């Protein structure tokens, strides 16, 4: 259990957190969501003491975080950064094992752990262990960034907008990975994002923040069905705005498409067509529609594909 009691952070220029009270339960995937400047990252960084409060206390269990040896405290937590921040001078294997190295694990054990973690996130250790970060795509790098946080089997993982710099496909895949890891490893994850859809998709509970205050804490359903105030409603509307601009291309990028069957007849639509447009067309096209992907390949999208997409993206 992580608890914030009357926590305030005053910077010379502005008040970042104003009398924050919050409890994060063990085993939760807790999401802090809000626009920039809302205080969500400040809140997160108080848990591993990258930032100390001006007043108030942050506790892990019953103990104040300031009572721990600061390095020991940090070594018991995983941390995933927005900029990924893999060390460019180290191999993937050494990056993953950086905290074990600090804990003086023997080398053989560190290598074993790295390889095991790479396998767990579907990166072949033989291909990846000895490569350098610059040789990996952004999505692959953040995959490594996540397992680096898991290396010492910490109970708490902090994630600071980890997917905001990634493309939509990688983002979706990594969200799935986080959900899967959270379930299988019984972790407490504190996750910061400015994307309401991401928050609602991932969170066991979600805290919506604005200007250093918490607006509402609850399960995604609570927040969706009973938004506490106009700010949260507007936050939803802007998220839905984003949805309305979604196009067929988004489905293609996310991999919800299938190959063309040669003996069937399809209607063709542009990939820039909106999802509404797609849904309407599909009503009259039981075989699905044909779309040209950006790589020039013709693909088919069926009603089933659209439904899977919507159900899994949490529209």
């Amino acid at each position: 259990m992580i608890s914030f009691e009357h926590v305030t952070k005053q910077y010379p220029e502005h008040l970042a957190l104003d009398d924050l009270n919050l409890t994060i339960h063990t085993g939760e995937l807790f999401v802090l969501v809000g626009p920039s400047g809302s205080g969500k990252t400040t809140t997160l960084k108080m848990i591993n003491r990258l930032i100390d409060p001006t007043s108030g206390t942050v506790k892990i269990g019953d103990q104040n975080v300031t009572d721990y040896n600061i390095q020991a405290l940090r070594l018991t937590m995983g941390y995933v950064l927005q900029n990924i921040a893999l060390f460019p001078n180290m191999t993937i294997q050494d990056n993953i094992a950086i905290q074990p190295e600090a804990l003086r694990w023997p080398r053989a054990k560190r290598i074993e752990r790295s390889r095991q973690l790479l396998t767990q996130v579907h990166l072949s250790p033989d291909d990846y262990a000895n490569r350098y970060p610059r040789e990996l795509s952004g999505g692959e790098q953040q995959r490594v960034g996540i397992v680096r946080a898991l290396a010492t089997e910490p109970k708490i993982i902090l994630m600071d907008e980890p997917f905001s710099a990634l493309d939509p496909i990688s983002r979706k895949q990594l969200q799935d990975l986080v959900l899967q890891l959270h379930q299988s490893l019984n972790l407490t994850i504190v996750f910061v994002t400015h994307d309401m859809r991401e928050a609602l998709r991932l969170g066991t509970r979600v805290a919506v923040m604005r200007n250093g205050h918490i607006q509402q804490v609850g399960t995604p359903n609570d927040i969706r069905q009973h938004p506490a105030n106009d700010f949260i409603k507007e936050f939803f509307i802007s998220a839905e705005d984003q949805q309305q601009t979604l196009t067929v291309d988004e489905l293609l990028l996310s991999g919800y498409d299938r190959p063309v069957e040669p003996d069937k007849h399809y209607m063709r639509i542009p990939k820039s067509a909106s999802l509404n447009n797609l849904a309407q067309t599909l009503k009259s096209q039981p075989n699905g529609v044909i779309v040209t992907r950006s790589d020039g390949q013709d693909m088919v999208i069926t009603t089933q594909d659209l439904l899977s997409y919507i159900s899994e993206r949490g529209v």
Partner: protein
Amino acid sequence: MWQNLWHTMVTQRGQIWEALLQHIGLSLLSLLIAAAIAIPLAIILTPHKKIAEGVLQITSVMQTIPSLALLGILIPFVGIGTVPSVIALVVYAVMPIFQSTYSGLSEIDPSLQEAATAFGLPRWMRLFRIDLPLAMPTIIGGLRVALVLIIGTATLAALIGAGGLGTYILLGIETNNNSYLIIGAVLSALLAIFFSALIRWLGRLSLRRMVEVVAIAVALIAGAAGYQSYTAKTATITIAGKLGSEPDILINMYKELIEQQDHKLQVVTKPNFGATSFLFKALQSNQIQVYPEFTGTVTQTILKSHTKTSHNPQQTYEKARAGLSSEYQMSYLKPMKYQNGYDLAVTQQFAKKYDLKTISDLREIATKLHAGFDPDFDHQKDGYPGLQKAYNLQMGSIRTMEPSIRYKALVNGKVNVVDGYTTDAEIQQYHLVVLKDDLHYFPPYQGAPLLKTSTLKKYPALKPALNKLANQITEKDMQTMNYDVQVKHEKASTVAHHYLLTHHLLK
């Protein structure tokens, strides 16, 4: 000229190799010390921006001190030789290394720094696994700048007896020998290129490998230095000489004579040790025990009590001897016969044509004379202006020219009288006629061994040994010997030995 260069390289390969090794040793030692100071300092100060900027200012100011001035400042405190050279070189090298390390460390991507902090890495691990490796390309850049700076500046070490390739550059300038100049300059340039590439290669290694390589380099340098000081310790007497072939020949004679007198004495020669003031200071601080000095130099630059220079050689020697004894407790042994001072020289043909033997003989044909003078000689009071007055000479025309070109201009008939030194090898080389200074205008410059009186007491064999050269060696002898070394590239020790044998000074 290429032939000349090749010949010099072949005949002197031993000394060139030694100078090269000295240069490398001096440069690497200075670089290592500078790095050992600058890198840890930058690591400590990187979190303290204001202090670091202050240190950067100080090191930049140190950089602006002219290197010769710095050497001059250091000599009273640490003497001459390797120590002040290394200190001066370190002073110059600290700033680029500190600056590059500091900027390398402070420009590390903030998100990587945040990651290292958030992971709770211990300080040492953060430094050696993350900060230093990430800053390494910048640090390596600074080290390369520092090394090139050091190798260039180290050529000045020759001025204060630390040896190195600068010896050849100074010697080349002093004796108008382009081969020496080229050897010194080209080798230093090649050295800079080679080591710069080596450091770049070093920068590609992992930190652990790098530490291993540096440790090996340190061990090698320490070993070489240890060996040198070990071998140096067996020497009881060190004889040094100024730049050029003449002092080199003389100190080889000293060595042979001393070793003949007392077999137990170990004598080491240090040719091309530097300029007058450095040699004299080295003698005072007992880093060297003997060196040949000219009477005129003693009376005019060494003695504090400036009196009017006598034109009588014996009086000048007496004055020098007495002054050295009372002011410095030094003994000035008996001088050799030859004078190494200014002279005027003409070609044999020209002398015959006008029946020239003395400088006075020039007076009658003065208006027809086209003189080629060294710029110093043309201006200095004891040069042409004084000569003009003393002999009442009005030369037809005077052109000032570089010493090296002067003799060639004379031989080619561009000028018909030049100034020179009485023992110049060119006198023999071109069969020139030196006109007698019949009015004794030029101040006498006689060479004699100079040493501390205490040294003389400690090694009584020195006096009889060195005095064997008293009143020996004529100007002609010296010209020939200089010719043998400078033009024929014989070894100074061989030439010296040959003279001693033919003059029955060796048993």
